[in-house]
């Protein structure tokens, strides 16, 4: 009796070992109309030593026939959209369990359970191209450097006019200050004119010979 039962169960398990797995791609936000997917969109079930593959059907479903027991990785190869992988476990009695899986995670780590039949949804549309950034005047105007330049140009043009409208007394004071500054500037040698490139590059902070400043002063005088 027991033997018979065993035989029966063995027979049943054998008979049920081949399962049909169904699934579909339903409309979603990323893909309102799944019928636009290319005709060669393929779905594969892979595990060691066994691989099943099928194409997406015209009604956006897919069927794997005669899948044997195992723990499979379901991948969708589609040239226009990117799909996340799924884990599909087919038990000995033909029961199918589907779970979310992440690539690189240990396989023993079963992810969030999903319903059967399988529902696939794209994660993202594939974008193959990069558009070359051409010359864009509006974008150029938006850059901070250009904004600074424009601002300084405007202030250069409008400041003198603003000055004209200012209080004459304050104006006079400003003139005075300006003159003073100009006078000191005349007496002081231009620091740039005195710059010794060679010694700067050589790492010496001060020029070794004291003669040049006098010369420079003379030249500065000539410029008047």
């Amino acid at each position, binding site marked *: 009796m027991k033997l018979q039962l065993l035989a029966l169960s063995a027979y049943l398990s054998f008979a049920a070992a081949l399962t049909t797995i169904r699934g579909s791609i339903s409309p979603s936000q990323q893909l309102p109309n799944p019928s636009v997917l290319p005709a*060669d969109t*393929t779905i594969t079930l892979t595990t060691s030593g066994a691989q099943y593959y099928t194409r997406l059907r*015209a009604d956006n479903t897919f069927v794997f026939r005669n899948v044997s027991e195992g723990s499979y990785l379901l991948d969708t190869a589609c*040239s226009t959209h990117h799909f996340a992988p799924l884990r599909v476990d087919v038990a000995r009695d033909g029961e199918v369990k589907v779970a979310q899986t992440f690539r690189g995670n240990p396989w023993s780590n079963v992810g969030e359970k999903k319903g059967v039949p399988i529902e696939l949804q794209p994660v993202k549309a594939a974008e193959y191209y990069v558009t070359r950034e051409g010359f864009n005047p509006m974008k150029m105007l938006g850059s901070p450097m250009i904004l600074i330049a424009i601002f300084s140009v405007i202030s250069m043009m409008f400041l003198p006019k603003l000055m004209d409208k200012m209080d004459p007394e304050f104006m006079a004071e400003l003139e005075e200050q300006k003159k003073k500054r100009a006078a000191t500037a005349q007496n002081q040698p231009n620091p740039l004119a005195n710059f010794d490139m060679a010694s700067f590059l050589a790492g010496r902070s001060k020029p070794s010979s004291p003669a040049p400043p006098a010369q420079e002063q003379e030249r500065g005088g000539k410029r008047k």
Partner: protein
Amino acid sequence: MRLLSRLWLPCLILNVVSVLAIFKDDAYHTDWHIPLIGPSIAASTFFHRPNAESRASLIYTLTTRSILAAINPKDGELVWRQPLAESNGTGIACGGNGIIVSATGSAVASFDAANGRLFWENQFSSKIVDLGVTATNAVVVLFEDGAVRLLKEQTGDVAWEWNFVDSTDVPISLHVAESTVTVALSHISKLHLTTLSLATGREVGSPLSVAGHPDIPSTHRALHGDDVLSWTERSGSILKFMPLAPTPAPAFVDIPQDVIETTVVALKDRIAVHYKTGANSWVDIFTVDAGTAVKHYSLQPKAGAHSAISLSTSGDVTYLVWTSTDETLLYDTNRPEILETYPHPQGQSVNATLAISEVVARLDGSWAMRSFVSSWALGFVGDTHLIRNGEIAWTRPESLSSIVASTWVELLDPTTEGIVEDLNVETHTSIGAAYIHRVKRHLNELAEYGPDWVKALPQRIYNAFLSVENTESERTGKWKDFFGFRKFAVVVTAEGGLAAIDVGKNGEVVWKASLVSPPVKFAGISGIYEVRKGTVAIVAADGEYIEYDAFEGNELLRAELGAPALTSALVDTPSETKAVVVILDNGKSVVLPPSPDLGPVYLSIKESSRLVKGLRVTGLSHHPETTWTFVPPASEEITSVVSRPVHDPVASIGRVLGDRSVIYKYLNQHLLVITTINPTLSTASVYILDAVSGAVLHSATHSGVDTSQPIRVGVSENWVVYSYFGDDDVVSTPGGAAKGYHLVVSELYESEFANDRGSLGQAANVSSLTGAGKPYVLSQSYIFPSPIEAFAVSSTKQGITAREILILLPGTAGIYTLPKRIIDPRRPVGREPDNAEKEEGLFRYQPVIEIDPRSIITHERKVLGLKKMETTPAELESTSIVFAYGLDLFGARLAPSMTFDMLGKGFGKIQLVGTVVALAIGAAVVAPMVRRKQINSRWSAM
């Protein structure tokens, strides 16, 4: 949300890192693609309307490469194509009402005829012999084991099944009528017909015996519908055929001895039999009257070994179209007179092997005729053409779908080629004389070319500003363009054809030649090499050495080597030429051209799945010595042996780290990678050998490997990449491994420590023979989201440009480029990179490599069935040229570090000139103003 972030984190990192991307304006300009399907199967090629409303029909064909395709007869473009299960070049395709049903091997599938989307598919345990489509689109299938199954039109599920009793019966064919299906089978060497009801699957009436001793398999070609049954008897000396009527009466014809092929074509009430001998062919026309076939007339034999017939019906008339090499003849099957002769255009002869036609009578009494023809040429089998009223409207180069090997041919430089002698004079005289010679030459050139150059200057400037492509790349023929983007790939087909493909010019075929002459079949190829400037050498597997002019396609030399070739290699000789070394089956070696000064060269050869041998060959000796043997551990099988590319220049011998110290690369030109699998333990091993000494430099074994899936390897510089399918289930790994495609990278360094060369010390030269030391190997493993068909590495002139790994993705039918620096085994694991590592360009290790579509160089193109990718440098250091083959042909330019040495399309010449002009005008306007202001300010300051 967490899900999204987890998914996209790797992508974001990729986005930051990836530099290569396909620009929208480059796509379809710098790359080309020829989609192919392979040679058509005669019985599975037909004109058919994609749906009942459509007025125009498409050409549907199933090919020997198991691809079902719809071709637009107007321009020859593919409307759709679907790869089916491989089945050794056989298969059946049938048209239904808006559907196309195909059977390859033991799988049946039904596709939407208009767009190629799958309606259903089903897989069985037995092979399929024949199938038929009923009026309601249900499919009747006859299997090799004798079963007949009706598959439902909506789902493809089995509606009923019928098995005949005797297991010795051999199923032959299936004939679908309105409400019944007739199965022809051989029962105790008698031809039996059993009729089944389509509705129930039960037998209708008793089996009918129609003939004794039919040939199995039949020796003729039957290209008819379901109304006729045809078979041969007495080993093909009698051809019998009969319309399937209630009281069948077979008609028969004797087949003359010298006939090599007979074809039966039937349409409506006409049956045409086509006979071919080696020299000519003729046609018999039969009329079916009340269920019996009566010979109507015979057409006179036509000379020529190749011709094909097809029947087409329009109105009440059935036309016969007879396509021979130079002309197409149109007959009305009622009369033996020619209605119309369409001579083929001069120089465009077609050796037709199969033809299907459509004929329509015009109102003015003439005919519109179009034929889809598959042709045969020596070495090139299966090119298809559309002949429209005698004109060849288009041609598809399907014969190039069977390319098995290719080599690059450098084109000639027009600036140096003409003055080779002058340059030689300059190199061989003293410096002073050479200088004077050069100045003289330049003056001559100035006088000769100068005026023309000046004259052409305005046009050049105009073109430079307004045309998109540089006009200098327009050079044709054997002359190289300025940037070296044009190169020839000389390819060999499986049938022994040799062709030159211009990779820089959209894959144009420059010339074709055949390596074989008619009675001999091509034995396969051992190697193809560019031996000299403009000369390619082919070593055929049966031991023939053939040289061809790569620019013109002329045979230069043909030599018998005396024994089949085992392996061959191209080596450099001391006199700066190249020679081909061939190892023969009889244990000898040959060097061509003979170069006695050739020093010892080391080759390795895979003897069996358990043995790789190292051989030493010299220019003088004809007997190679075995220097080492590699036998993998017990129960391991060698699957592949890969060595570094021949052109693999290394720009830097070390890697500079963030702290300015250097780790030295282990650079060995003789790196050999051997992969093995162990199916019983589910392990895969990779051995890195020195091909000269045979020393194992490094080995790695991975457990839990799916050994039924191939292990792919790529080697370059000092690193190796390989991929396999890893599975936790097979061998449980502590911590749990990830299931998926693993991509492993191993880099070889001279030492573990920076500024240290390990055992090599200060050695300037390293010899494999005296012990090159063991490398220090760094490895990292990644998960790749797709299976990998092949690896290739981008190749540039100096090797300065960063390398990129080309990965052939079979799933999405594309080529992905992965910058090598992304899979850098020095990426820090489990922590953020420190400042030094950041400076080195390293970022945190992520186990998954996500495929960024912008790095797919084939972008939206579908490159189907590719097997191999070949890369070669262009003249520009930044650019590598790619050519991929297998089924489709694909060519592209690759710039792994962007085109840093060329002004791209993004460079606005007009903008630049405009800016300079605007600045000049601005300066001219502002300068006097500023000067005045300065003077004024100085005066006012006084």
